[in-house]
């Protein structure tokens, strides 16, 4: 299970990139009056570069799970039937569109229509990237992964970590906070609760309460219930940190976001990230390799 660390890092970072791009980028690109004045352009660029950086890191770390990384140039050879090829195709598409859009914004080229169109295309590619990533694991040979559990978990991680990363950015770097911060923090709290409930809801099928997978030739995985419990505890702590941030925001807005919010929001981000990483190790641990 621990050997799958490159896949854990790749999937969590890739999903966070998509979530950040959508949660932080959608209002910036599509809200009325959000046209490209100088500060809006700066924020758009920051979101694009952060998503691109995360995707680049995810792609780099994914090579560590290959035993012959230099042969990976052929990885698009089987787009016709392999979800792994498709995942890489959409991953590259997402990154390329992010880069093009960032370049246009950087140089001030292109109109609002083009930027919005590229944003939509990048978003579609990113969603297909995470969808292919889910389909890749939905194998008939692996009943533990072969249902809605996989895509729901992956997209939930994307939106949750994306929203929290956006909140952490605003909380830490915007003195005085932004008017959108409070609803964003509230949304994060709802998403952490959703992740918590989803983990509880899927627990019986995923071997936590002693349920065993049907007998097969696949050896038992190493997923431990301690890991699962640790994830739940960390998510609860993360939601407490978020609640503290919301309380601070409401009770003393004059404090200024930088002084008042960076600590609890940053803490929530770290805790929820740890929770998602533990959850992903647990995901891989459900299936053994001979």
């Amino acid at each position, binding site marked *: 299970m621990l050997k799958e660390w490159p896949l854990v890092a790749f999937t969590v970072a890739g999903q966070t990139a998509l979530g950040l791009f959508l949660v932080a980028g959608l209002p910036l690109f599509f809200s009325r009056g959000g046209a490209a004045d100088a500060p809006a352009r700066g924020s758009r660029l920051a979101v694009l570069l952060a998503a691109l950086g995360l995707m680049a890191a995810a792609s780099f770390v994914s090579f560590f799970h290959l035993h012959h990384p230099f042969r*990976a140039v052929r*990885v698009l050879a089987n787009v016709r*039937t*392999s979800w792994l090829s498709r995942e890489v195709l959409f991953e590259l598409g997402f990154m390329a569109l992010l880069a093009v859009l960032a370049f246009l914004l950087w140089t001030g080229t292109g109109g609002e229509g083009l930027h919005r169109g590229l944003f939509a295309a990048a978003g579609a590619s990113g969603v297909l990237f995470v969808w292919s990533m889910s389909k890749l694991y939905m194998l*008939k*040979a692996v009943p533990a992964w072969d249902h809605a559990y996989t895509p729901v978990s992956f997209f939930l991680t994307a939106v949750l970590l994306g929203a929290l990363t956006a909140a952490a950015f605003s909380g830490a770097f915007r003195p005085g906070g932004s008017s959108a911060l409070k609803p964003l923090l509230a949304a994060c709290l709802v998403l952490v609760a959703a992740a918590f409930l989803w983990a509880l809801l899927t627990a019986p099928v995923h071997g936590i309460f002693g349920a065993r997978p049907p007998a097969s*030739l696949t050896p038992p995985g190493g997923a431990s219930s301690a890991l699962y419990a640790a994830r739940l505890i960390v998510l609860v702590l993360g939601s407490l940190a978020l609640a503290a941030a919301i309380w601070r925001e409401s009770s003393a807005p004059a404090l200024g976001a930088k002084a008042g919010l960076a600590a609890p929001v940053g803490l929530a981000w770290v805790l929820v990230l740890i929770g998602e990483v533990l959850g992903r190790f647990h995901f891989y641990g459900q299936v053994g390799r001979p």
Partner: protein
Amino acid sequence: MVTQYAFFFDAAACSGCKACQVACKDRNDLGPGTLWRRVYEVTGGGWEKKGQVWVPSVIAYNVSMACNHCENPVCGAACPVKAIWKREDGIVFVDTDLCIGCRYCEWACPYTALRFHAATNTVSKCDFCYDAVDAGKPPACVAACPRRALDFGDLADLRKKYGDLRHIHPLPDPEQTGPALVLRPHRDAARAAERGAEVANWEEV
């Protein structure tokens, strides 16, 4: 002409001696931990009350399993670099010069036939001893079995000879891959699922 090579396995005859497993390792020079043919020990049951009497309901049989050179090799469909391919006579190969070692096919194959091979740093699996078979000889596992529990040949011929059973507990649903496999069941196999029989020798396979 052979259109689909296949294995036959007689679970009623197999004693679990693992001569097939060792012959395969020996012929293919497989290091510790790499097994192209495995013998699974399937056990379950215990005691059952019938009227006033407790009778043993023990399940115990063996399943010798390699790659089944499936008619629908899902391993190859999953492979991103097309390193897994099927020859005209049905034998499925891994091209170790193409394989990037992502080990995705390992998850895709419900028979866990694909195994990581340190020598090539790629996955590997049973190649049906294609060079022996091409020369008119049997695969090493078939030749080694002292109880004649293994046989090989064209799938159509094996079916004529032995019937068309492709599934016994705890093998996966054959609809998943269309394994080129013909089985004769052990008498315990019929009640193995209901008695919760499972593979007992994970450390070995």
